[in-house]
């Protein structure tokens, strides 16, 4: 089977699997809910049926699982597609938003929000600002680091990918030191919050955060999907892409901002969830090759699927407590990734 057939098939399979996993995710958790009840609840909402499903079941489905599932799918998709785009942009299959420091910047922002939030926003009467201070600061941190890294890597002759990667390493180190300071000055309870936040969770999802994700991440995913051909050209090299009629500087700036947005928003609502952006595009490339026209949408879908799978494990593995999802993705992703590297190593040798 040639690659274009395979790609089409993969996209179809993923397009079927994603809704299936979403339904499965709504049905999975410490409280067992019959699949039929989920359908009833949906139909009741639509006014089609008027079933006897208990209020608590309804509440769990409507207020906890649905927002959580939808947010998880959105975040998984965004992280995976942002990873795929970054790898294309940096022409490095190991690049990841965390590599140029976006994640660490966002994490530092959120850390500041958690540890100093009370003091920082004490002057504001708006409690909404208090509630969202962590998210806002995470987002600001992500965009700010991206901007710094981008500026450092850019000269009159364009943006140097190598410099940006190095700047990313430096920024990450700096953000790490900042986190260290926060760790030091945090009191016991805040420290625990900080630690848990760094491990990621989508348990706190509500319809507001879902709305936030759809309005901010939806356009990001949609926009990135349209960059397939451009990223393909970028893989040839920046001058080659330019020779193919692509405004490389503008493209780079846009892609960097959009991925910073994807990562910043994800980190701000769910903490740090690693490996999705790295493993998912890699898997897709193994199956259908590096063509971004398939890679981007397929990564988005598989990213959603994998994050929901990880979250299902996070929900039930230690119930009634809950595992931080970042631990699950790392536990699933890291060994898998190591086996990929091992095989690559053997192939080269």
């Amino acid at each position, binding site marked *: 089977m*040639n*690659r274009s057939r395979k790609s089409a098939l993969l996209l179809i399979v993923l397009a079927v699997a994603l809704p299936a996993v979403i339904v499965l995710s709504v049905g999975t958790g410490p409280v067992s809910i019959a699949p039929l009840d989920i359908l009833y609840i949906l139909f009741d909402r639509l006014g089609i049926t008027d079933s006897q499903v208990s209020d608590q079941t309804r509440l769990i489905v409507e207020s906890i699982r649905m927002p959580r599932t939808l947010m998880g799918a959105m975040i998984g998709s965004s992280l995976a597609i942002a990873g795929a785009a970054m790898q294309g942009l940096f*022409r490095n*299959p190991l690049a990841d938003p965390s590599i140029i420091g976006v994640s660490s910047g966002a994490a530092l922002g959120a850390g500041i929000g958690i540890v100093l939030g009370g003091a920082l926003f004490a002057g504001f009467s708006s409690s909404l600002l208090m509630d969202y201070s962590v998210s806002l600061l995470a987002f600001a941190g992500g965009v700010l680091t991206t901007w710094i890294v981008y500026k450092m890597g850019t000269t009159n*002759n364009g943006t140097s990918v190598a410099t940006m990667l190095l700047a990313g390493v430096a920024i990450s180190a700096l953000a790490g030191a900042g986190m260290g300071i926060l760790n030091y000055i945090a009191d016991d309870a805040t420290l625990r919050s900080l630690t848990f936040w760094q491990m990621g969770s989508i348990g706190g999802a509500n319809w507001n955060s879902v709305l936030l994700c759809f309005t901010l991440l939806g356009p990001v995913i949609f926009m990135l999907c349209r960059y397939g*051909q451009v990223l*393909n*050209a970028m*893989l*040839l*090299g920046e*001058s*080659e892409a*330019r*020779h*193919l*009629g*692509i*405004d490389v500087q503008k493209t780079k700036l846009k892609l960097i901002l959009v991925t910073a947005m994807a990562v910043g928003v994800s980190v701000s609502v769910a903490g740090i969830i690693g490996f999705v952006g790295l493993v998912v595009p890699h898997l897709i*490339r193994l199956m259908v*090759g*590096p*063509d971004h026209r398939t890679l981007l949408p397929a990564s988005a879908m598989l990213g959603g699927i994998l994050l929901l799978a990880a979250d299902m494990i996070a929900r039930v593995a230690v119930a009634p407590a809950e595992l931080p999802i970042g631990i699950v993705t790392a536990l699933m992703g890291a060994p898998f990734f190591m086996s990929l590297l091992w095989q690559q190593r053997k192939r080269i040798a």
Partner: protein
Amino acid sequence: MSSLKVQNATVQIGEKTLLDDVSITVTPGEVVTVLGPNGAGKSTLMKVISGERKPSSGSVILNDREDWRLEQQALMLGVLPQSSSLSFPFTVEEVVILGRIPCATDRTENLAIVEAALNEVDGLHLKDRQYTTLSGGERQRVHMARVLAQIWNELDFGKRYLLLDEPTSALDPAHQQLTLKMARKQAEKGVGVLVILHDLNLAARYSDRLVILKEGGIAAQGTPHEVLTVETVKAVFNVDVTISEHPAHHCPLVINN
């Protein structure tokens, strides 16, 4: 008249002059070869023409205009770089079809053009191979096919040009000849070709005109017979040669003493 014209281009970085008041014209249908020792400014010239580097002064005029949109320029000007950093496992067909990005043709047509372009560089058998498994020479030919595919169609708004930066550097002698024959064939189809070469004899045999660069400036410019003299070669390349006539092709033959 349509042409690719470099007018008094100077590139300066700090105190250093990389290109010093260079003017070159390539007209459709001719093959112009740029020669010169390392550091003479050949690659800078290439970058100036392709628009990657703005000259400190002077201009590049493509078919009578300086201000083409990038997408339009891409249809008129194909650029083959010295080497490519592509490291993702595309198939050869996928790489060549990237050349069709600026073009508004459908996939079926693009695939046909990819085959034809691969055929031009003796690379049709590579079509389904993975690019990353190819040898250096094979890769160079694949990129050549990609650039050919890019400027495959004739345009109603301007003539087409091909810039080849040392296209033979990784090739065996047979494929060196093949590549330059292909360049000539493009010229016959009405494409203006500008090639950077190191091999004086290849240049002499396949070029209509030669441009010799030295220290950023033009040392000599004209037909192979005009340019390739014992004195010029000595002055520019610092080698002693004997120049005679090629028995079969009636072009100068440069023999190292």
